[in-house]
C-alpha cells in the first residue's frame, strides 16, 4: 500500500501496530493469506525466474540475465503495443464505470420493475467470454451482421460498414464488446455499495436544501469511494491483461490496430514457445499495472 496510508493508519488509530489488542486481526486474515501464498506465490516467482532464461522449461535452461528485457525495450514497436493496450484499457474501464455506475444509480431508485431490470442488465456477464466474443463478431459482420442491418434500417448509415476490418473502427468495436461483457460487475458492486448508504443522509440533505447533484457529490460518491477504488484498480489490472475477446474479434488486427500486449505474450509463449521472453513481457505488464494501481491509490487512497 502507499506509504501515506500507513501514516494515516498510525495517526488515526490511537494504537501502535504492535498493540496486542490488534493481533487477533492476524488470525482473521490467515486463511486467505495461506490460501493465496500456497497457490499464487510459487507461480509468480516461477514467472519472474524464467524471465531470466532462454528455456523450453524442460530440456533447455540457458541463463541469459536481463537480455530478454533488453530485447523488449529496444524493439521498435514495444511502446506502440503498450500504448494500444492503454487505449483499450482506458476505454473499457471508463465505459464500464460510466455505464455501470449510471445503471446502478437508476436501479437504486423506486422505479417500477427494478427487479426485472436488475436481472436483465446482469445477463451479459453470465456468458463465457468466448461466447460473447463470437456473438459480437457475428453481429459486427459486414454481410450477416445485426449491426449493419439495424443501422441501415434506421438510416443511420447508408452502406454496410466493416466495423472490425477498419483501422479506425476496430478499437472502438473491441472496446464496446468488452464494455458489454464487463459493465454488469461494476453495476453490481456499485449497487451493493449504494444500498449501504443510509437513506436518512439523503433525507436530511434534502431538508437542508441540497439538490440531487450536491447529494451525489457530497453523499453518494464519498460513500462509494472505497468500492470505486478497489473495482477501478482490479478492473484496470484485469483489462490491461485481457486476451480472449480481442483475440477472437481481431487477432490484434487489422494491421496493428488492436495489437495489445497480452496477444504478444500469448504468441510468444504458446505459438513460438519462447517462454523466457514471454515471461519477461509478463513481468513488465506486472510492473506497469502495479504502477497504475499505485497511482490510483495515491489519487483515491486513504483506506481508513
Amino acid at each position, binding site marked *: 500500500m502507499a506509504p501515506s496510508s500507513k501514516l494515516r493508519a498510525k495517526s488515526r488509530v490511537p494504537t501502535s501496530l504492535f498493540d496486542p489488542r490488534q493481533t487477533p486481526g492476524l488470525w482473521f486474515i490467515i486463511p486467505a493469506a495461506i490460501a493465496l501464498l500456497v497457490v499464487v506465490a510459487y507461480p509468480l516467482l516461477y514467472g519472474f525466474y524464467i524471465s531470466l532464461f532462454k528455456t523450453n522449461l524442460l530440456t*533447455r535452461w540457458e541463463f541469459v540475465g536481463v537480455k530478454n528485457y533488453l530485447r523488449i525495450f529496444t524493439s521498435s514497436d514495444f511502446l506502440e503495443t503498450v500504448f494500444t493496450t492503454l487505449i483499450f484499457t482506458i476505454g473499457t474501464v471508463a465505459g464500464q464505470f460510466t455505464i455501470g455506475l449510471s445503471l446502478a444509480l437508476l436501479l437504486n431508485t423506486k422505479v417500477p420493475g427494478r427487479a426485472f431490470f436488475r436481472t436483465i442488465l446482469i445477463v451479459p456477464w453470465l456468458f463465457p467470454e468466448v461466447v460473447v466474443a463470437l456473438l459480437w463478431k457475428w453481429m459486427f459482420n459486414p454481410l450477416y451482421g445485426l449491426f449493419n442491418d439495424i443501422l441501415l434500417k434506421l438510416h443511420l448509415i447508408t452502406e454496410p460498414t*466493416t466495423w472490425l476490418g477498419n483501422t479506425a473502427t476496430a478499437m472502438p468495436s473491441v472496446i464496446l464488446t468488452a464494455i458489454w461483457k464487463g459493465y454488469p460487475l461494476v453495476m453490481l458492486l456499485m449497487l451493493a455499495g449504494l444500498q449501504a448508504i443510509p437513506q436518512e443522509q439523503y433525507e436530511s440533505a434534502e431538508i437542508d436544501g441540497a439538490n440531487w447533484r450536491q447529494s451525489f457529490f457530497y453523499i453518494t460518491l464519498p460513500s462509494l469511494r472505497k468500492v470505486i477504488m478497489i473495482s477501478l484498480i482490479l478492473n484496470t489490472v484485469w483489462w490491461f491483461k485481457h486476451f480472449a475477446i480481442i483475440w477472437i474479434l481481431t487477432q490484434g488486427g487489422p494491421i496493428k490496430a488492436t495489437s495489445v500486449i497480452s496477444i504478444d505474450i500469448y504468441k510468444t509463449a504458446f505459438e513460438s514457445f519462447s517462454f523466457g521472453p514471454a515471461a519477461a513481457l509478463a513481468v513488465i505488464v506486472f510492473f506497469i499495472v502495479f504502477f497504475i494501481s499505485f497511482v490510483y491509490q495515491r489519487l483515491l487512497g486513504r483506506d481508513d
Partner: protein
Amino acid sequence: MKSASRFLICLTIFGLTLGFGQTTLKIMSSTIVENPEGTVEQAIADAFMAANPDITIEFIGTPMNDIFKTVTTNAIGGELPDIFTNTPEFAATAEDLGIVADLNEVFDAEFLAGFYPTALEESTVNGKLVVLPWFTVPVGVLYRADWFEEAGLEGPQTWDEFVNAAQTLTQDTDGDGQTDRWGFAMVGSKNGSGFFRFTHLLRSQGAWELYKDADGNWQSDLGSEGMVNALRIYQTLNESGTVPPGVTETSYGEAVSLMASEKTAMMVTGPHTIGAIIAQNPDLAGKIYSVPVPMGTQRSASLGVGGFSIAESSKNKEAAARYLQFLVSTENMLEWNRVTGRMPAQIEAGDQPQISGPIYAGFVEAIGYAKPSPQAPFYTQIQEVMGEAYQAVLVGGVSPEDAAAQAGAQAAEIIKNAE
C-alpha cells in the same frame, strides 16, 4: 520390431506383477471433439477395443486451437497422455522438448514405407519420426464448377486466370444494383488461417517467407519482387470488388460460411472444407471442384499432415503402437476420407478410386508439388510480419512496394535477433 517386442515383454512383466493385464491408453485428440470426425474416430477406437480386449482407450478431447498449449503444459508438468494429436508445425517444438518417441523405433520400416515419403519427411525432425501421419489436407483452390461452367470458364491454372474468374463471377444476381455474389472468399485475418493461404500465393511467386540458404543461414524473401507481386494480386482482387466486405475479419470459419451460403465462387483451402461446406448446405454436393493453387512463376502446395505422436514418457508404447497401426489401415483412412474429406496419408489408400474425379483432382495434383514449411522457432514471428503486410495493403492503403519493403526489413531484424 526389436524394441517393440522389448516393450511387450516389459509390459507383460509389469502387468503380471500388478496382477492384471489391462492397459488403459489415454489419447489426447482434437478431432474427437469435432463433428462428424469424432464419431468416426470413436467407432475406430471401439472396433480396436473389441479386437483387443486387454486395452481400454480413453479419449481426452481438446479443441485444435488449444491442443498444443495443453500438450506443452502437460509435458512440462510431467503428465502427458500416451498418444496425442500432432502436426509438423508442432513437431520441432515437441522434439525440442524431448517429449515424443521416435516412431522409427516403434514401427518397422516396411509398415512406414506405405506412407507418402513427403508426409514422412514433414513429420521427421533431426532424423526422428515424430508424427505418424494419419491424413493429409493438401492446399488447393475450391471452386463452384456450376458457376464456372455457366460463365464458360475453366478451373484457374494461373493467377491471371484466377483474377479474371473472380472478376467475372462477381455479380449482382438479383439486379438491385448491389453486388450479392463475389468471386473469391479471401481469408485476410491476421492468424494462422490467413498466413497459411497467403504463404502459398507468395511461394507461387517464387518467394519464400523463410528458408535456409546454401550456407545454412536463414533468409527471407519478404522484401523481394515476388512479395510485391503477391501483395499486388491481393490488392487487385480486393480493390476490384471481387472479395466480400470485411476481408480482414474473414477467417476460415467466415470463408466457409460464405461458400456454403453461395456468396462466393472460390476459396483457397484443403479438401476437408468440402465436407464443412456441404454440412451447412447439402445442395452443394457435387458442385465444388478443385485445382491446385494457381501458377505464378511456379506451383506451391503443402501436404497438411495431421497425425498422432506417442509420448516418450508413455509406459504403454506397445499398446499405443498397436492402436495407431490399427488406426491407419487403408480401410479406416478411406472411411475417414468419406466422412471428413481429409485425404489418406498412405499410398495404397490414396490410389483408391474414391480419391479421384474432379472433386479431388486439384488436391491429388497438389500432393506432387508439396514442400515442407521451414521449422524455425521464430517462424510465427515471420508469419506475423507477413500478415501485417497483407492487411496493410488490403485495408491500410499502403502500396505493395512499401509493405514489402517494410516486411523485408522486419524479417531481417527477426532473423538477426534470433542468431
